[in-house]
């Protein structure tokens, strides 16, 4: 497997098996802590629970996805120490007192911990139990921020409000089965009341026990209302207080997440949480079978009965299928989404592109001959995973590959990787694989930042409900962006070579032609995409062009492309000018792509996000410094050449 070549100083890996072995070893080493999770807590496995269906933000999804989204919302990660997201969520729902100790609430600003009177943690994550004691302070800090204008909020205020909202969401989750917990408004050992309602004296009754006696309570109230207030007994006064409390609970509880109990009506699907059912079914005429199965699940979990838990989950899923079949509504199989979640193809491919990038940079430096082949190999593996991720998303959501900002980065990364591999094919090496690996890694990394905004598999706004235009307009625009970005990246190498190394004219010419070719590719597709966008706007908004900021951004890119191409034709710029223009082109693309969304105005509202502002400005700063520095060095170099040629002529 390993042979020592007399010419090379290093060890050479000369067959595919060794390469595959290295791939898996590296992947396992890098991903082992991400993908595998050991269960440190003593509890049953909630794996069967992962494929149960829940409705969130208009989409029916498996609990696994819901759990990951919730955990990302609270903690910024898809796993916590010792538990998968699904296992954690099961703990929160079925055994909340245990889950309250999990360190899941991310608080970035240590001043907040100080303000709440809790010890700041190095890893910045806190448990519900810790924060519960400080909730009053947290509430008052966030209330005082909310009373002020949103524009006056600083990062402390925004973080406080974010944490408070997360605590509220968590509280709603942990209260899902609080039906079953002792109802706090009823005292234990109240024998008279217990006898009146047929309850056990020794234990404090739960809300669900009271709910199943609501007819009895109603009839008692009816009798009490016939009497005067002075003649009421203590038991009767307790009934009145109890009824009042139950009424208040019903009014305030709403229909909090998670929505796990469906109802198919002629008006469409309706989904409820356990507490949400109270608002619909005031008496015990609830969908009892489903509710009882949920209670069985909870009981089995608490009693650590794996078989009981799995059986209850299985029956619940079967019941769900029956309900949807009877209502003639499609319930899709969550298996593909579960596989997609567990593999996380974009994280894997990002890491593989990163490895490819390292090898490709080695190839550039010519330190190791084989590094180029390895970088191409890893790029292709990454591309296969990347492609499978895109296809999986298309199948899960049944829509084209690009429908939101997150997907634009995923798709543009994919196109850039392919463009780089095309360059490899036409023997522009190793620039091609460098382009593939670096752009693939960077854009997937940017995409991963956007994934923290929530579920990336979201439902489409009404205006986007057109597969034809989603496929034509957005895909072509993404192709255009990919072209400009790839051209810009290669242009950096041109400038770097021209400025910092000995000038090799032939090599520079080759790179310049590659920059030109890919720049034009990006330009063509941006124009085509913009024209399609205009046609879509005519269908949707009543006009081909409306000077919307996103439209203006696309126009700026086209104008820049026109200026560059016409300048080339006029002879006003050549190789170096083209390279500098290509770099500016990337800046323009990023400003249109990310910067316009920061403005928060215009009809392209489905792309609005505040993520990325800092990174965008840093990037613009970096490119400005790069271009200015290169410009200064180039002009010094050319002055030096001119001086030398003058000396020679003298």
């Amino acid at each position, binding site marked *: 497997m390993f042979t020592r070549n007399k010419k090379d100083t290093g060890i050479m890996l000369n067959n595919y098996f060794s390469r595959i072995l290295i791939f898996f070893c590296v992947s396992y080493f890098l991903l082992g802590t991400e993908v595998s999770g050991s269960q440190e807590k003593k509890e049953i496995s909630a794996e069967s629970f992962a494929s149960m269906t829940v409705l969130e933000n208009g989409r029916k999804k498996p609990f696994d996805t819901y759990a990951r989204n919730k955990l990302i919302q609270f903690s910024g990660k898809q796993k916590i120490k010792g538990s998968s997201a699904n296992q954690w969520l099961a703990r929160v729902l079925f055994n909340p007192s245990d889950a309250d100790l999990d360190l899941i609430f991310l608080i970035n600003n240590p001043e907040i911990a100080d303000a709440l009177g809790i010890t700041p943690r190095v890893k910045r994550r806190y448990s519900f139990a810790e924060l519960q004691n400080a909730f009053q302070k947290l509430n008052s800090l966030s209330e005082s921020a909310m009373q002020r204008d949103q524009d006056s909020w600083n990062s402390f205020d925004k973080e406080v409000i974010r944490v408070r909202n997360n605590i509220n969401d968590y509280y709603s989750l942990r209260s899902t089965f609080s039906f079953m917990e002792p109802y706090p408004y009823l005292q234990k050992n109240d024998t008279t009341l217990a006898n009146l309602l047929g309850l056990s004296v020794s234990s404090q009754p739960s809300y669900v026990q009271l709910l199943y006696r609501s007819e009895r309570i109603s009839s008692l109230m009816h009798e009490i209302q016939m009497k005067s207030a002075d003649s009421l007994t203590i038991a009767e006064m307790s009934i009145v207080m109890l009824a009042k409390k139950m009424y208040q609970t019903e009014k305030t509880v709403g229909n909090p997440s998670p929505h796990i109990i469906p109802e198919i009506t002629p008006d469409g699907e309706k989904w409820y949480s356990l507490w949400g059912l109270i608002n619909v079914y005031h008496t015990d005429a609830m969908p009892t079978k489903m509710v009882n199965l949920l209670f069985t699940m909870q009981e089995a979990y608490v009693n650590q009965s794996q078989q009981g838990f799995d059986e209850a989950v299985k029956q619940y899923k079967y019941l769900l299928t029956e309900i949807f079949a009877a209502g003639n509504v499609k319930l899709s199989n969550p298996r593909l989404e579960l596989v997609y979640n567990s593999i996380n193809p974009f994280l894997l491919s990002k890491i593989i592109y990163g490895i490819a990038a390292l090898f490709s940079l080695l190839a550039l430096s010519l330190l190791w001959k084989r590094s180029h082949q390895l970088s191409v190999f890893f790029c292709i593996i990454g591309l296969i995973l990347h492609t499978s991720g895109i296809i999986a998303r298309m199948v899960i959501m049944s829509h084209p590959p690009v429908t939101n900002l997150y997907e634009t980065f995923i798709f543009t990364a994919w196109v850039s990787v392919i463009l780089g591999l095309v360059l490899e094919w036409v023997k522009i090496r190793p620039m091609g694989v460098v382009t593939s690996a670096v752009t693939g890694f960077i854009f997937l990394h940017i995409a991963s930042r956007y994934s923290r905004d929530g579920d990336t598999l979201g439902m489409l706004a009404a205006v986007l409900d057109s597969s034809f235009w989603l496929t034509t307009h957005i895909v072509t625009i993404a192709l255009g962006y990919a072209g400009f970005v790839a051209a810009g990246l290669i242009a950096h190498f041109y400038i770097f070579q021209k400025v910092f190394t000995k000038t090799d004219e032939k090599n520079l010419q080759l790179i310049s032609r590659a920059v030109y070719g890919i720049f034009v590719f990006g330009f063509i597709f941006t*124009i085509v995409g913009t024209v399609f966008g205009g046609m879509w706007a005519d269908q949707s908004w009543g006009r081909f062009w409306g000077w919307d900021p996103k439209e203006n951004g696309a126009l700026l890119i086209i*104008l820049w492309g026109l200026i560059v191409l*016409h300048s080339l034709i006029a002879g006003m710029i050549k190789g170096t000018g083209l390279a500098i223009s290509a770099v500016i082109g990337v800046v323009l693309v990023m400003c249109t792509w990310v910067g316009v969304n920061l403005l928060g105005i215009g009809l392209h509202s489905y792309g609005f996000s505040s993520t990325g502002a800092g990174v965008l400005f840093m990037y613009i700063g970096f490119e400005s410094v790069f271009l200015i520095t290169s410009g200064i060095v180039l002009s010094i170099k050319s002055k030096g050449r001119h001086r030398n040629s003058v000396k020679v002529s003298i």
Partner: protein
Amino acid sequence: MLFLRKVIKYLGSIKLTIFCLAILFILVLAGTFYQVDFGLLAAQKRFFGSWGLLLFNFLPFPGLKTIAFILTVNLLSAGLHKFAFSLRKTGVLLIHLGTAVLFLGAGISSFFVQESILSLYEGESASFSRDFTKWEVVIIRGNSQSGLKTDTAQFSRLKTGLQISLPNTQVNLTVNLMYSNCDGLGYSPEKIDSLQPKPPSRDMAGSFPGMILTINNSTGSDIVNSKVTLFGGSPVPAVCTMGSDTIIFKLKPHDIKLPFNIGLTKFIKENHPGTTDAKSFKSFIKVTGEGINRDAVISMNRPFRYKTLTFYQNGFSQQERGNMTTLLVVENPTRFVPYLSGILVMLGLMIHFIGKFAASYKGLRRNTTAK
């Protein structure tokens, strides 16, 4: 002739093209940032619908109309001077032809495009839409014996201090105050107490103008209610009497007559399950008129078209009275121009650059093989 050739050569020079494109770049950039604070309508008016402006309030700068005009002249001159037809240049010719078509079409359509709003409750119908960018003061006067006479004045042509004489009467009106956008205060079905000015709205249908008029009568007849406050946001007219005549004043958006009657039969909003986010919304309409009598459905991405008119789903509201749909009505006889231009440009790009890529690829393979 030589002089003409020189002029055409200069007007068609590529450096002029580059210069104009650079100016256009700055204009679009500035106009985009301007929108953040002042809204799209204001940016359209200042940057994209003007011949010139003062950039940063001091630097004279050409507006979009000027640049578009120069670029069109540049393009046509270049066509006369450089673009002699040859098969090799087909792609380039098509690209530039498409661009010229776009500029000319945009220029022509700016005179003919008309946008207006039509809002209907379920069960309601109308045969006119309203242009909220053009307001008018309507004055109806007369009595049951002599009949009614109607005069209309465009709001944009009136100014504070202007005096207007109503034709064939001794009645004069003086415009005391005018606001392009305001709130009506002390609002009641009978009157409005006063007006409070506001900055112009960013939306087409968001600005409600107001004005205060004084009525003078040189004949000496008593005028009841000689000071009149008009507010665009109030559907109730202001009324005054002069002798036996009643004069009704109304400030309203300009009505555009439609060639048929359009009624809203039903409006349906479908939400994503468990949310209030719209998955789709549809207006079921009935269109009746000369040569047309049918039902149609208008939804996002599916407008209703009739000759040069198009009806788009613009918005909706769900009120106590019922569901109300808001349709955007666009009349644009040059609607096909951007499509034609787009097709020409895309075709030209494909032809030109596929040829170039093919030649470039051959050259590249030759070079790299030689290496």
